[in-house]
């Protein structure tokens, strides 16, 4: 029991750099496509690690399933919204950033 607590905390801790890189990407990347990329990928890995850590720390199956459901829902959400925003930006004629 103690071991799973520590493992769960370790997984949660492991997720923090991903959130940090997601926020840094949102602030520092040059255009909307690259920002979408940073936000919807890095943050999802971080959230996956945080929910996995919480699943290890809980003792009830219902809570673990609820956490899994939260993560899956966020995955679907970010995939859909990423594609929608990128498509709308392309239709508006926003050019993807190119390094010259």
């Amino acid at each position: 029991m103690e071991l799973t607590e520590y493992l769960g905390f370790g997984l949660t801790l492991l997720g923090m750099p991903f959130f940090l890189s997601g926020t840094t990407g949102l602030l520092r990347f040059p255009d909307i496509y690259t920002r979408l990329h940073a936000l919807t990928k890095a943050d999802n890995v971080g959230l996956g690690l945080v929910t996995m850590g919480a699943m290890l720390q809980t003792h009830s199956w219902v809570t673990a399933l609820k956490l899994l459901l939260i993560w899956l829902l966020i995955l679907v959400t970010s995939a859909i919204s990423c594609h929608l925003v990128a498509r709308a930006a392309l239709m508006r004629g926003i050019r993807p950033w190119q390094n010259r």
Partner: protein
Amino acid sequence: MNDASLILAFFLLFNLIGGLIRILRGPTPADSMLAAQLFGTTGVAILTILAKAMKMPALLDVALLFALLAAVVVVAFVVRFWASASDRK
């Protein structure tokens, strides 16, 4: 262990506040809406950690609701407000 979890929740909160700067700077409305997406993922992570650290399991339901609303918010923004006329069906 719970105190350390609270520190992690604080760290995520600062991430969230940092993301708010993008709302001020974002050249297009969609850049500002990305902050809503950030609230979706990071906010849910904060609630997940708090539910364990403060022994309030109800916060997990709040997290579920946040995840649901994040989807609706961004889709509504793009479809109703930001899509160009040619893209609109």
